[in-house]
């Protein structure tokens, strides 16, 4: 278990409600530097919300969220604009439905934020973008438009776009769920390569159990807005302690 | 103060009475537009090419040109052909004709929105063309168009002041004459504006309310 001192992203007693509906309750979780964690659980368990809260796309009613020890949310309230912007720079997110900017070319999708937010010079941003595209295997698509790409290609561009901002914590929200089966592999390959070649901390919400088993350092099972159980993949998948974990795994695992 | 309240109370009854004329013109004009529009829409979908083309041409022409000129046209030309109508009736016809071109578009969109499968099912049941139209297609086509028709009703209401140009004593004309007599235009014109605003806001809310109710029920 990572100690709080090492945690790059930490949730403490976070509660989130959507009107009457409880989404997260008493949620505690810490992501260690360089750790790869898979977040699994039935739909409605609040997994995606965890990522969205870290990315300040949703608000919370109670609890703390800290990035590298600094408060992003404190007692359910967000930090001020400067602090939020500063801390958000550590995080990158890839969405289930890609959300590429359709009115910009692939290259422009990658260079927009670095140029506007980090004041990177256009030429430098472009060079960095081309390198990233090379890395995700889409160097020849730099001048293409998003609508010309397949789902798998779009998602790889989305990953490159997030990487262009050089975050040290990457959040992946069911990034293969919207893809046709034959394209899932190419995206998972990119994720594997990222895990291998960088020391980024990665938090993935996923339904790809085999991938989670091979890739993650730790797996967290959530249900009803709380952490039910967590541990190394071998332990959680092969010898789950909690009954709810067992029930869930029986339903979803093919082996 | 610039505003004269005494004068306001003095003028108010006249304007409210003129509102009755405005209302008459609106409702009668819209009834005409609603019926005529259906005629245009059917003509445009006719298998006879010349009919469809002429209808499309006329509708496009009327929609793209000012109502005011069409109004003048009827006002000056009809008497030459021996048709003597009161200014109000002339105005109603002009409004009805002009807006029938808008309702025609609305009907056309509504009819085209009925899925192809409905036509095919009707054909498979050997229904006559007439029965297909009146029992299957039109009932499905009209319902979703009602909010849009409501909006055109409100638009026509706001166009009734044009009838002042052919001397119909609706609200604007009344306000103009009252203003000219007393040399004070501020109060009559403002009252007129407020009446329009209140009525069209109420009407818009009603249309939107009915729209949501209709949407939920389906």
């Amino acid at each position, binding site marked *: 278990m990572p100690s709080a001192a090492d945690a790059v992203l930490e949730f403490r007693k976070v509660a989130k409600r959507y009107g009457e509906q409880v989404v997260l309750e008493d949620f505690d979780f810490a992501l260690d530097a360089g750790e790869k964690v898979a977040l699994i659980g039935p739909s409605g368990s609040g997994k995606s919300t965890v990522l969205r809260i870290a*990315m*300040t*796309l949703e608000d919370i009613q109670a609890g703390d969220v800290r990035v590298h020890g600094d408060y992003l949310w404190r007692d359910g309230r967000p930090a001020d604009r400067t602090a939020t*912007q500063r801390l*958000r720079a550590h*995080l990158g*997110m890839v*969405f289930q*439905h890609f*959300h*590429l*900017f*359709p*009115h910009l*070319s692939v290259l422009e999708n990658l260079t*927009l*934020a670095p140029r*506007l*937010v980090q004041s990177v010079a256009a030429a430098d941003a472009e060079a960095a973008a081309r390198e990233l595209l090379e890395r995700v295997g889409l160097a020849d698509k730099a001048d293409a*438009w998003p*609508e*010309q790409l397949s789902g798998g290609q779009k998602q790889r561009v989305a990953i490159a*776009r*997030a990487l262009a*901002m050089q975050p040290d914590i990457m959040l992946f929200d069911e990034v293969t769920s919207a893809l046709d089966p034959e394209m899932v592999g190419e995206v998972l390959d990119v994720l594997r390569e990222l895990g291998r070649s960088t020391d980024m901390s990665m938090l993935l919400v996923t339904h790809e159990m085999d991938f989670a088993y091979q890739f993650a350092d730790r797996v967290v099972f959530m249900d009803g807005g709380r952490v039910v159980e967590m541990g190394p993949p071998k332990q959680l998948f092969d010898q789950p302690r909690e009954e709810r974990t067992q029930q869930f795994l029986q339903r979803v695992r093919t082996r | 103060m*610039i505003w004269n309240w005494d004068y306001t109370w003095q003028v108010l009854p006249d304007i409210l009475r003129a509102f009755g004329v405005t209302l008459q013109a609106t409702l009668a004009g819209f009834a005409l537009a609603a019926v005529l529009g259906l005629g245009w829409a059917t003509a445009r979908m006719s298998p006879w090419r010349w009919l469809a083309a002429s209808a499309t041409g006329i509708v496009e*022409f009327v929609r*793209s*040109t*000012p109502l*005011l*000129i*069409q109004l*003048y*046209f009827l006002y*000056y*030309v009809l008497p*030459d052909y021996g048709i003597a109508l009161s200014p109000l009736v002339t105005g109603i016809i002009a409004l009805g004709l002009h807006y029938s071109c808008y309702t025609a578009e609305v009907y056309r969109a509504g009819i085209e929105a009925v899925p192809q499968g409905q036509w095919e099912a009707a054909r498979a049941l050997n229904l006559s063309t007439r029965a297909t139209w009146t029992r299957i297609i039109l009932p499905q086509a009209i319902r979703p168009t009602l909010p849009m028709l409501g909006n055109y009703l409100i638009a026509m209401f*706001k*166009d*009734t*002041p*044009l009838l*002042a*140009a052919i001397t119909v004593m609706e609200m*604007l004309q009344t*306000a*103009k004459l009252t*203003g000219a007599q007393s040399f004070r*235009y*501020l109060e009559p*014109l*403002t009252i*007129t*504006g407020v009446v*329009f*605003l209140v009525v*069209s*806001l109420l009407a*818009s809310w009603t249309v939107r309310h009915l729209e949501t109710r209709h949407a939920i029920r389906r």
Partner: protein
Amino acid sequence: MIEFLQTHLPALVGGLRVTLQLTVGGALLALLLATVAGLARRSPSRWLRWPANVYVEAFRGTSALVQLFWFYFALPFFGLSMPALVTGVLVLGLNSGAYGAEVVRSAIANVPRGQWEAGRALNLGERQILFRVILPQALPMMLPPAGNLLIELLKNTALVSLITLSELTFTAQVQRAATLDTVPLFALTLLIYFLVAQVLAVGMRSVEARIARRRGRA
């Protein structure tokens, strides 16, 4: 026929020039107001939202002709007196701008929420997201309704004849009173409006096409 044109065409063209001045002036003002008010209506700040809402509801909910008369006859009571051309451009701009604000607001609202989220995930500021990500996507959605509003504005220029500005409709009336060539004259006038409307429509369509091409979806 030639004689007829020789008599009337020069005068009508003179009127047309004023009509075009009204159209262009009104359109530019409307564009400005629509953008400002459309964005203001979405603002989280009450101080921006409420004035914008009042403006839009007031000018959409009242009749354009009544607005014209009010600005021309009632405003002087507050010490503000303007020539008919200026009043015309001002009122047409205010009126069309109010409808345009709704077009702007609605187009922005129709850009998928995921685009906002993606921008936020890249740490872009709200204003940067609005101008670099959202508006470019909203723009193609605004063009077709904007084209319709432009043609509405053209038709509304005819109303300014009623405050005695010598635009096309006024000129046509003058010519009619002088020569009593009622039917051909009005027909010609309608034709001129129709042609201008077609030119505007074609112009808007080519703008739509150019915007579409720039986005790589020819």
